[in-house]
């Protein structure tokens, strides 16, 4: 069943060139989709149009049976509670503790007043504790987030998204600020989330080999247009260089690694 459908989505910022030019694709439930493309291709724009952090200029986005661009404010909040988001720079409130940051994921479900005062139910707290423990941060529950390493911060980000009970999680370059070690841990968690929990994942990535190794499907975009949409197995070196608009030899992709895991 299609969970998400984009029809001819376009986005213009101030200038005359579109950031997205007629993007269409559908995503099934539980699918792990990676979006790759050169810098400025429109990956972040695409992701932010899906949960309407950015308003699209044209086209239609359907999430389940909801037409995203037609939602009123209140319904938009409801839509967003069902979609988690993970950021390159984690976007945590550094001065708050891990548990407080994770519980922020519940705000969309609460009345404004309860959220303002930070009143969370016992179930919510337990759920947050559990997710934190499972992500291997049991020791750091009450630690302030500015004392954590990058990889730990990103796990807090994942926990915040999971505590929303989302149907889908959007990841904007989740490992771009991490070392290879922490990157692998994060990607493995994401894979588990997609396969083990049936949550749909759309993940912007800069590392082609990571996308090849982890995703069920790859969407390549260049200059706001989808230039590749298919399984990782069919992505050849030539197609990759087409996505990135370079000679194939220049790309630093370890093609051997795709079969490693």
């Amino acid at each position, binding site marked *: 069943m299609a969970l998400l459908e984009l029809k001819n989505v376009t986005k213009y910022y101030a200038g005359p060139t579109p950031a997205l030019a007629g993007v269409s694709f559908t995503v099934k439930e539980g699918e792990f989709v990676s979006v790759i493309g050169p810098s400025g291709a429109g990956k972040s724009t695409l992701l932010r149009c899906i949960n309407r952090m950015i308003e699209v200029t044209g086209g239609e986005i359907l999430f389940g049976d909801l037409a995203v661009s037609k939602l009123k404010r209140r319904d938009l909040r409801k839509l967003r509670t069902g979609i988690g988001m993970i950021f390159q720079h984690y976007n945590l409130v550094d001065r708050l503790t891990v548990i407080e940051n994770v519980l922020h994921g519940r705000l969309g479900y609460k009345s404004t007043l309860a959220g303002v005062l930070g009143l969370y139910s016992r179930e919510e707290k337990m759920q947050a504790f559990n997710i934190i423990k499972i992500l291997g941060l049991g020791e750091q529950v*009450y630690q302030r987030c500015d004392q954590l390493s990058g990889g730990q911060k990103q796990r807090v980000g994942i926990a915040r998204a999971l505590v929303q009970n989302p149907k889908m999680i959007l990841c904007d370059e989740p490992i771009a600020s991490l070392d290879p070690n922490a990157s692998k841990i994060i990607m493995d968690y994401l894979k588990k989330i997609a396969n083990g929990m049936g949550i749909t994942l759309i993940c912007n990535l800069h590392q082609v080999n990571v996308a090849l190794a982890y995703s069920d499907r790859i969407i390549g975009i260049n200059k706001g247009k989808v230039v590749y949409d298919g399984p990782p197995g069919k992505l050849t070196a030539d197609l990759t260089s087409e996505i990135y608009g370079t000679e194939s030899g220049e790309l630093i992709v370890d093609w051997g690694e795709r079969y490693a895991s």
Partner: protein
Amino acid sequence: MIKFEEPIDIWGQISPEHGYTVHGAAGALPFKPLNRQALAMRIFLLVISLLTIYALLTIDYRSVDVAKAAADTLNNLKIIFLQPDTHRLSLRDAFYEVVITMGLAFLTTLFGGVIAFFLGLLGARNLAPKQVTNIVKGFVAFIRAVPTILWVLIFAVAAGLGSAAAVIGMTFHSVSYLTKAYAESFEELDRSVIEALSASGANWWQIVFQAVIPSAATSILSWTFLRYEINFANAVAMGAAAGAAGIGFDLFMAGGYYFDLREVGLITYIILAFAMALEAVATGLKGRIRQNPR
């Protein structure tokens, strides 16, 4: 191969269909023990709120009819801002007076800058021994604690009210502000560069003029201009409160002596125009310097 810190097989258990089960003691942990910072923050907010409430409750409201005074003030502000006009002061005079104020600010900034330059060298941790920087810092803190107007009035006893007392009095705070700013600019030069130069046989003054000043020049000029902006505002205030020349004095006369609201309006607009122009330049310069010395 990288190992996980936690076994992954609990993953199935947290999927929404299975519900979120509680493991071990996690559920029993109390939520949010207050850490030191959070506690201090709360105490601070509490104390400052209580002080404010106490202060507001103990104001003597009886001596004025607050509602009437507020309405009058609103009305006065309307006249000031909507009907500015010239009476005693022609527009040309007013501009001339602003130029005088700018001149006072300039002299103050210049004297302050020259003195602060030497004090800044003595206050920079990479250029002077620790005892010396501490003395400079204490001196600067003391100067700052006396309000500018009091420096001016104290000097006025010896020099008489006027531009001399105003410039000298205002110079004190400029010295304090710029010393701190310059010292921080000098400190941005890495100790290792100084080491390299002294290893090559350069003496202290040579290092200062060949390495420290060239590398700090941009931020020194920017800080100096920021102080000029402050000094312009100060010069207006001193004109009013200490009888120094310039547009501030005219403002004081129009407002406190002739009760001429329209002229107050005109003068306010003129000062506002100059101050906002200076602010626009200052905002542009702020990008070039690292941090605020206060």
